[in-house]
């Protein structure tokens, strides 16, 4: 598999470490009423689709950037790769 790194271009999958569903960016707030439920869903439940999947990859043997890769779990086709930090900011995460 080849991941087209936004900064470094096409790189072999072996340079990367896979984490999982990109929903792991959306970490719940710890002070919410139902924080426990939110964290339970955040940590454990997955959509696990057969098709397009947004997922987190870490360029462990490269520039150590985390990427959000949009990949089809049936064909393995990759349609989009973004820097996770950009995605996280877009999703309203800051400090």
């Amino acid at each position, binding site marked *: 598999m080849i991941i087209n790194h936004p*900064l*470094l271009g096409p*790189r*072999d999958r*072996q*340079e990367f470490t896979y984490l999982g569903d990109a929903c792991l960016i959306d970490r719940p707030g710890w002070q919410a009423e139902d924080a426990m439920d939110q964290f339970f869903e955040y940590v454990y439940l997955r959509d696990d689709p057969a098709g397009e999947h947004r997922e987190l990859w870490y*360029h*462990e*043997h*490269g*520039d*150590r*950037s985390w990427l959000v890769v949009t990949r089809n779990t049936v064909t393995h086709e990759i349609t989009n790769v973004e*820097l996770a930090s950009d995605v996280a900011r877009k999703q309203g995460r800051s400090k």
Partner: protein
Amino acid sequence: MLNLQTITPLWGETPRVDRFNGLTITEVPNQALASLALRKGREDEGRKAAEAMLGFALPEVGRHAAEGLYAASWFAQDQWLISAETSEHELMSYQLVDAVAGLASVTEQTDGWCRFDLEGMCRGVFERLSGVNLAAMEAGSATRALLEHLSCMVICFETASHYSVLGPRSYARSLHHALVTAARSAL
């Protein structure tokens, strides 16, 4: 007056040199290294301060720049690996800290790496070690690459014929073994 003997990553008192038919692999131990990472929100100031000290512009993604005493390679987002000869710049990281205080983070990396320079016919060696097309790198480019299971930093001075390969120092003997075995097979 410091009275301790240094040792090279390959445990020698002098650098190791391996010669093959058409290729030389040289251990290069005396490099002062430091990483320079820009502080958030202070990127421009940090960059200016660093460039003022280095005397040249910090290279763009995937590039390497050298001028006078210093050299710099792109390392990661807003991060570079700065180098100079240890002989006169043992304390380079301290000088950097003074130059960019508060605007960038500096971490000494001098002994974090081992370095092997390849001069000659490099293609066959790289073909056997890395999925990155290192033999096709342009002169003046630098990239992170996986060589035989080791995360390395590769700098190209001349396409297909002159490179520096930097690897984690503790793996020096494994990296060296991989390089010479590939060279023996390729040449």
